[in-house]
């Protein structure tokens, strides 16, 4: 490879005939040693140039080291610079020979020309040879006191390089003091370099000391620095904590001008400093974000694409806390046709966030234009952006406007199917599947649209999505059996495992609602899968369905007809604004620029049942919601017809002493749940029910919550309500069946000791046996079995709640029979967290039942 490149170069430069790498070195050596060349300054310089050129092209020219050392002793500065480039690259390979250079360098440090002095000093420290340290220290010390600022700049950083060469050695206190005093150097670059050097030398102590005098000194000299210096100073000051509010506001007003600086690096560094100076004053940070809007938008229109991209990524961060920040400026995020794909995708992500009543028509039109982009990634991103905005519109939804525009959205998607292009159709079908899962009201239109698009679908993902839609909504798609028939006939040549599995499920589902049309082909499919299929997963699934059919049609229906949609996910998309502190630490780092890249990779999706389509995942790594927010979420959710909260929520919320946050991640699969659930059960039976067991790391609690109307609320709304407080429901019995069972889990996180957050996993079962067949003996309306040391308190708490409640629904007489039995298991044991969780759960259940009243 290198040789090939060399040839090319040679031919173009026409300097020498082609020679191999070794020959090159030999040839170069001959030129360097030639006394005729050495005596002619220009020819000598040219020979050296050739060496450097070979070096930067990757040829190993380290063999010429001694010749180059000789070339170092010259009065020609250009030649000196070239030789130093060479020496610094190869010094570590030739420590002994490098000693020869030191003399020349030290002599140069005495040169009357400051340029020569600084050059020698810089390269002396760039050799990176620990053995040379003793020779370097003296000139460096002298350099700190040099008349020329350029020499002092080099000397200051030289100490940092020296320190990093021998990190374990003692730091000379005199040097550190000298560096601190040089912070007052008249040259601003020397000052900034001192900051940088001290940061590195004192890394173990946490960097340069930032006290009040230093801070104010730096702030006062900020204007003298160029933009690089300003960024450095602003960054270092992030560690400063002002002693009083007055001081804080003095600093902030001093910095106001740099906040709206036309130089993006300064603007970003200032905002970063603002956010770290006043984490406790949200109003200030918010004002700063608004102030920075103008410059950020200007950066979004910068000539440099990379700069535009950087600004866009940071705007996304800002929008997480202030969703309305850019609303009026949505046109700034329209894509230009010549922009690279990575910018277009970011812009679309931003556009979706900005959808509101006023701009929705324009935005949808714009997004439609991107769907036919030549770049398939961009086209797919545009399609999913369309669907996300559709979901948001459905969520805004009860309103007439939201409704009519989500129709418009669907219209656009259906129009795209008409193009009959593989990648577009596939993306549209996949997003439609996600759409009906979240917004079931769109299903009619979708059912009409999917007819006939199987011809253009080629990839596995797209066909899987189509099959899922046909299975679940098959009774409304008239051609569904014929489409499936095509798939079933072609099953032999089917390569994708996912498609086969989905085909089985879809055929079974369709069979349940259209048995006459499906019977024959389902038989063929099952026969093929059981008899001829080689893949064990497909075969097992086919066998399972076969046996299931033996159990009777009703049983089959129970198993197969699961949920069709999950509207709660849609509600969550209108997520609450995050506090600024969530992202402040990643502002102005590379982090926001990298996030998007990972998102696009995780594009592979299965059926929605198996997918956690959690919109928050994209933005928030910790994915937790803490209690305070739960209450807000409950309040704000009131128009979504899911949860209507009342005063009990507040009472319970405030009774929690420990801040507790719940989180549904990491996700728990049903299998893991079952395993964990059954494990303590065994323990339980062994020891006998009387003394149930708080064993070391797991606790099991049973609890009764009075929740009379739980039966009347649909599983969907129950699930949605649980989702709002980050409790994941894993499984439940069909609506109106008795006994009603719901299985759920969550992770609690609680800052028990300030330092280590403590997290536990809680698994739970809700059991409502109904009036008729009460199986569990109940002691009273409150608690039946509560174990553990401090559970007495909890009992009281529960009593109190129950009493508080009974004040409200006095109409309820039959308290015993309305109880929902809650069984909870916790790993590891943490009573306070469990207690907190119980009170949240109780709140949700009460809220639900009071809603159905």
């Amino acid at each position: 490879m290198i040789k090939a490149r060399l040839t090319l170069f040679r031919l173009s430069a026409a300097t020498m005939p082609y020679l191999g790498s070794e020959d090159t070195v030999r040839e170069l050596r001959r030129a360097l040693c030639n006394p005729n060349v050495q005596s002619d300054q220009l020819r000598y310089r040219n020979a050296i140039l050739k060496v450097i050129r070979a070096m930067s092209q990757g040829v190993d020219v380290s063999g010429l080291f001694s010749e180059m050392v000789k070339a170092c002793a010259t009065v020609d500065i250009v030649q000196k610079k070239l030789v130093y480039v060479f020496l610094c690259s190869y010094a570590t390979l030739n420590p002994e020979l490098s000693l020869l250079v030191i003399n020349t360098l030290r002599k140069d440090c005495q040169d009357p020309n400051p340029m020569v002095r600084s050059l020698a000093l810089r390269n002396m420290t760039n050799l990176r040879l620990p053995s040379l340290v003793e020779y370097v220290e003296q000139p460096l010390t002298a350099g700190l006191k040099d008349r020329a600022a350029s020499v002092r700049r080099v000397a200051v950083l030289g100490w940092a390089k020296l320190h990093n060469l021998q990190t374990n050695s003692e730091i000379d206190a005199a040097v550190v003091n000298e560096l601190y005093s040089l912070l007052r150097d008249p040259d601003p670059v020397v000052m900034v370099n001192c900051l940088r050097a001290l940061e590195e030398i004192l890394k173990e102590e946490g960097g340069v000391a930032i006290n009040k005098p230093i801070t104010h000194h730096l702030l006062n000299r900020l204007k003298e620095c160029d933009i690089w210096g300003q960024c450095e100073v602003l960054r270092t000051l992030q560690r400063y904590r002002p002693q009083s509010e007055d001081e804080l506001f003095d600093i902030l007003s001093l910095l106001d001008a740099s906040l709206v600086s036309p130089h993006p690096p300064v603007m970003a560094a200032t905002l970063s400093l603002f956010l770290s100076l006043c984490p406790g004053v949200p109003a200030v940070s918010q004002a700063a974000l608004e102030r920075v809007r103008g410059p950020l938008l200007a950066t979004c229109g910068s000539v440099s694409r990379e700069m535009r991209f950087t600004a866009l990524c940071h705007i996304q961060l800002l929008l997480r806390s202030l969703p309305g920040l850019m609303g009026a400026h949505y046109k700034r995020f329209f894509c230009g046709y010549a922009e690279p794909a990575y910018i277009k995708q970011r812009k679309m992500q931003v556009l979706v966030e900005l959808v509101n009543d006023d701009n929705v028509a324009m935005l949808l039109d714009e997004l439609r234009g991107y769907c036919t982009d030549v770049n398939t990634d961009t086209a797919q991103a545009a399609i999913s952006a369309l669907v996300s905005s559709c979901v948001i519109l459905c969520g805004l939804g009860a309103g007439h406007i939201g409704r009519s525009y989500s129709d418009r959205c669907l219209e656009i998607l259906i129009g795209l199917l008409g193009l009959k292009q593989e990648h577009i159709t596939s993306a549209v079908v996949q997003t439609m599947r996600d759409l009906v899962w979240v917004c079931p009201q769109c299903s009619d239109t979708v059912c009409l649209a999917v007819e006939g698009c199987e011809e253009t679908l080629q990839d596995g993902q797209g066909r899987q999505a189509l099959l899922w839609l046909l299975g679940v909504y098959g009774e409304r798609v008239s051609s569904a059996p014929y489409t499936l028939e095509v798939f079933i006939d072609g099953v032999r040549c089917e390569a994708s495992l996912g498609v086969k599995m989905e085909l089985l499920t879809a055929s079974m589902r369709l069979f349940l609602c259209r048995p006459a049309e499906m019977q024959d082909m389902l038989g063929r499919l099952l026969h093929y899968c059981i008899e001829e299929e080689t893949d064990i997963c497909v075969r097992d699934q086919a066998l399972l369905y076969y046996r299931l059919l033996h159990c009777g049609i009703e049983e089959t229906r129970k198993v197969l007809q699961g949920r069709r949609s999950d509207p709660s996910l849609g509600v969550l998309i209108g997520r609450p604004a995050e506090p600024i502190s969530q992202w402040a630490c990643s502002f102005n780092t590379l982090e926001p620029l990298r996030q998007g890249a990972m998102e696009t990779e995780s594009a592979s999706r299965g059926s929605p049942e198996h997918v956690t389509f959690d919109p928050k995942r994209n933005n928030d790594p910790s994915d937790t919601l803490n209690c305070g927010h739960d209450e807000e979420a409950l309040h704000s959710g009131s128009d979504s017809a899911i949860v209507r909260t009342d005063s009990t929520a507040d009472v319970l919320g405030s009774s929690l002493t420990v801040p507790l946050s719940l989180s549904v991640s990491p996700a728990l699969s049903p299998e893991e749940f079952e395993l964990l659930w059954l494990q303590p059960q065994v323990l339980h039976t062994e020891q006998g029910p009387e003394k149930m067991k708080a064993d070391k790391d797991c606790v099991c609690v049973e609890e009764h919550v009075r929740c009379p109307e739980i039966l009347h609320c649909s599983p969907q709304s129950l699930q949605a309500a649980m989702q709002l407080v980050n409790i994941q429901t894993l499984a439940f019995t069909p609506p109106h069946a008795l006994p009603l069972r719901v299985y759920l889990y969550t992770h609690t996180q609680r800052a028990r000791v300030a330092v280590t957050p403590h997290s536990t996993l809680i698994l739970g079962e809700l059991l409502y046996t109904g009036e008729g067949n009460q199986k569990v003996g109940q002691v009273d309306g409150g608690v039946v079995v509560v174990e553990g040391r401090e559970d007495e308190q909890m009992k009281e708490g529960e009593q109190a709640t129950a009493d508080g409640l009974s004040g409200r629904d006095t109409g309820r007489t039959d308290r015993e029979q309305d109880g929902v039995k809650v069984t909870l298991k916790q790993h590891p044991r943490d009573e306070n967290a469990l207690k907190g969780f119980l009170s949240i759960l109780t709140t949700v259940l009460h809220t639900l039942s009071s809603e159905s009243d």
Partner: protein
Amino acid sequence: MISQVFILSSKGDHLIYKDFRGEAGSDVVSIFYEMVTALTGDQPPVVMSHKDLHFVHVRQGGLYWVATTTADSSPFTVVEFLNRLTALVKDYCGTLSEKSVQMNFALIYELLDEVVDYGYVQTTSSDVLKNFIQTEAVSSRPFSLFDLSNVGLFGAETQQNKVAPSSASARPIQSSREQGVLMKADVQGEIRVKCYMPSCSEMRIGLNEEFSIGKSQLRGYGAAVRVDECSFHQAVRLDEFDSHRILRLCPSQGEQTVMQYQLSDNLPSAPPFRLFPTIERDNGGRLLMYMKLRCDLPPKTAAINVCASVPVPKGSVSLSQELSSPDQSAELKPQSRAVVWEIPRFPGGTQLSALFKLDVPGLSSASMLEVGPVGLSFELPKITATGLQVRFLRLSPVQPGPSQRWVRYVTHSDSYTIRV
């Protein structure tokens, strides 16, 4: 803090490699290039990571300018640094290309050495740097009659020993889209000064008297020249700006942006081009596109290098065209799925037409939808979209010896899209 800087050609040739901190080996260059080539498409993301290494790059002049850095460094700073570096190299070498970088590698090493020390940017001011840089630039441009378009302002001056004149150029970038009505228009402009006076004390740039900023402020009685937002280089003194619209500055040698401005939506003049398309299928299953393109510039001016790109249905096989004059050309680009219609010169107030006949096997009515928005790229010399003018350009005190000055206006399209 920057650990390494390297420059790669688009084919992966190592042009420049400089290690500032000695933290990672030189194999990072090949790691970077492998990551770039592993990606589909030719637009790798700005930030890429490999273990603890973080690459930030910009693409300029067909080259990758890459810096490796730590995760917590500011992307704004690193990107700005790389942009500044490319600007410096362009200042010194005349043009940015693989060839000019190759020929001037010694100079670039020298530049890097002075600009960055131990990963920290020391200075990027060409004023300061000119005292340190000793190597002479090598002109990469062999003399060629065909290359006259390339004799830019820049290379010529650097060669003439920097006794060259100063100039200001306004360069608005226009981006608009329309659908009978104008939907969105954004103009971003800047005044750049290129100055090669060996010592220049003060320069005064006078703008239109009626120039106004923001919506409320209106000046004078003539047609107002208005921009939404405006920002200035920090060295610009604005004491005469409010009264007389005069910018005062002491320019340093090289190129610098003195003023940047933006204008959205309310353009003072009509958009420069209008398109009247007719699209239909003929009996033989061919797609007929009849395009009438009208240039609404003032009659004495002209747009140059106009290039219209019309997206066509996938699977279009061949194109036959009828163009209204022989200097135009049209070509079907199957890769980008578009017909590219090029017009070298388009005088104001005139109209051109073209008839494209496309053979598309299996043409359906749905594929007509794929004939998407038409993108235009063009250059408008002597015109600014906002109407901003430079009234005068003066040096004080008057320089002895020869000095030339010029003012050049040009508008480049950034994204000019017309919906069909």
